[in-house]
């Protein structure tokens, strides 16, 4: 704009404003955008358009730019991060969408202020916050040197604090280093597109640092994060799928922790599915089955939304609905390690308990576990500590907790899966088997050093098996109900109504609102 031709009238000023805004909306320019489109990758603004209810995006900071270096003023439309507010299913959300076409969506002064604003508003005014991640990290050289550091970093003492006032969602949609990685870890739900990378720093930098070539997939690919680290909840093939999953996740959540989740309609056929349980549960206690099939017979049709399906597979966690109301399902899966809980399984369940309890979602345990996995590998991963984290989280929950012992429930795991007073109410199936230790091992322990014959051991084992049935719990009221498997859905719906937090309108005390996000 020529200095001597400054707009004078309101009309001229508005016209000039319109031109600036239009230029800012072009992001990194038509060429860069076209290349992404050709590669089947969405851009910062198209992602927002698809994610939000049509026409509801109200942008904040469109004219924000980098003012650190004069030459960057014209090269940083929206300062590389598109931020604002909108609606999803008619409910308010805040959103930050990284624009990789502008300096790799790197973080700098102006865009960090934008994030701070959206974050503060969402937290204080009570609605979810969504990060669409694709960022190269902090902007260089803006942040270099002591003055750069002092200006750019560390000025917000609450930048990474979470009190889980409102749900946070993160999508890993490309290279995510620095802030996109941080927010993915802090989020309640993280979805990752295959091919994207989530790591502290880029493969290029890592290669430089260790003097060896580092492959992006090894450093932070979808397999690493969905199977080994568990930092990602679900993996998808495309940006569009990721956005659909965000909408789906949010449909299970309240807008903020002071309200209960929305109630949905119950799909026709949900009650009828309950009878299929008898076809899935094997007659033999030695036969495994996929507990997700049982879950699908109990919850409202197609309402089960699994978290971390490929991590800690011995446990299954996911959101679902019963009679239209959101619940958090926790189950042992006999398909994996016979349902024995390992460290990853413990971590997965603990994290899930924290999320459900923080957002007023009742918890339902479906139990079939021979105990914890024992051995050196688990001990190296601090198994006893993880088991205790799990117990602490379970015992700090103030949302209703229900437990159904389907088959095995042994030892300490009996407690971790809600046994005894670790649930508000426990039900057992007639197939339940409860004891401290599997009779086979227990026989060895009690006859240790006593020179018992095989016949004597056999008799001891049989006696133990006879005393492990559901009756032992029912007769001393250590279980509150005995139910047939096909009545589980009906039982849970009724019990949830009984256990509803009436005095607080369904709101828990959120003892774990500040629980760490990774541990």
């Amino acid at each position, binding site marked *: 704009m020529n200095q001597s031709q400054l707009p004078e009238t309101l009309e001229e000023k508005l016209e000039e404003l319109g031109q600036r805004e239009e230029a800012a909306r072009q992001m990194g320019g038509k060429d860069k955008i076209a290349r992404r489109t050709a590669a089947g990758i969405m851009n910062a603004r198209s992602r927002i358009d698809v994610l939000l209810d049509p026409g509801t995006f109200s942008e904040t900071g469109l004219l924000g730019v980098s003012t650190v270096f004069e030459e960057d003023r014209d090269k940083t439309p929206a300062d590389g991060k598109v931020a604002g507010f909108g609606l999803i299913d008619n409910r308010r959300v805040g959103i930050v969408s990284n624009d990789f076409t502008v300096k790799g969506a790197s973080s700098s002064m102006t865009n960090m202020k934008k994030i701070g604003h959206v974050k503060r508003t969402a937290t204080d005014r009570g609605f979810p916050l969504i990060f669409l991640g694709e960022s190269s990290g902090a902007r260089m050289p803006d942040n270099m040197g002591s003055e750069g550091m002092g200006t750019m970093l560390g000025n917000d003492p609450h930048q990474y604090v979470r009190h889980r006032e409102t749900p946070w969602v993160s999508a890993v949609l490309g290279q995510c280093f620095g802030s996109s990685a941080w927010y993915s870890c802090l989020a309640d739900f993280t979805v990752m597109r295959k091919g994207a990378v989530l790591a502290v720093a880029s493969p290029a930098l890592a290669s430089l640092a260790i003097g060896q070539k580092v492959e992006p997939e090894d450093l932070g690919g979808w397999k690493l994060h969905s199977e080994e680290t568990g930092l990602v909840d679900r993996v998808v093939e495309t940006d569009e799928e990721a956005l659909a999953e965000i909408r789906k996740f949010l449909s299970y959540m309240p807008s903020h922790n002071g309200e209960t989740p929305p109630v949905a309609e119950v799909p026709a056929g949900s009650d009828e599915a309950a009878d299929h349980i008898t076809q899935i549960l094997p007659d*033999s206690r*030695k*036969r*495994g*089955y996929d507990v997700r099939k049982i879950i699908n017979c109990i919850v409202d049709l197609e309402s089960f939304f699994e978290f971390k399906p490929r991590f800690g*597979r011995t446990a299954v966690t996911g959101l679902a609905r019963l009679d239209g109301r959101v619940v958090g399902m926790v189950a042992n899966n*006999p*398909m*994996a*390690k*016979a*349902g*024995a809980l390992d460290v990853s399984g413990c971590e997965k369940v603990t994290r899930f308990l924290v999320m459900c309890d923080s957002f007023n979602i009742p918890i339902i345990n479906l139990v079939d576990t021979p105990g914890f996995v024992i051995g050196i590998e688990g001990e190296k991963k601090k198994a006893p500590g993880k088991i205790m984290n799990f117990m602490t989280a379970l015992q700090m929950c103030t949302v209703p907790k229900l437990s159904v012992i389907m088959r095995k429930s042994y030892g300490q795991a009996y407690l971790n899966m809600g046994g005894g007073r670790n649930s508000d109410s426990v039900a057992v199936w007639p197939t339940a088997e409860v004891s401290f230790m599997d009779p086979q091992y227990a026989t060895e322990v009690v006859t240790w050093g006593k020179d018992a014959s095989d016949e004597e051991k056999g008799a001891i084992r049989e006696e133990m098996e006879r005393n492990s049935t559901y009756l032992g719990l029912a007769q001393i009221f250590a279980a509150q109900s005995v139910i047939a498997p096909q009545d589980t859905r009906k039982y849970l719906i009724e019990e949830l109504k009984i256990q509803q937090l009436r005095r607080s309108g369904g709101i828990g005390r959120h003892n774990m609102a500040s629980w760490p996000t990774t541990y």
Partner: protein
Amino acid sequence: MTITNVASEVIGSVWKVEMNVGDAVKAGDTIMILESMKMEIPVEAPVDGKITEFKVQPEDSVDEDQVLCTIES
């Protein structure tokens, strides 16, 4: 015509193979049973089709995600 790999979900060994090459299967049918941590783990067909190849036989050790057999549909 698509080939579907049927993969193991567990670490264990092959206990019983219930079908033969050429058999027609429906999604959900049990093709074989693995043994893992003293449990019998059924391997079910993920799709309808015909079994074209077995990559394992009884007593073979198997790993998570290892392909056990293929189905043509």
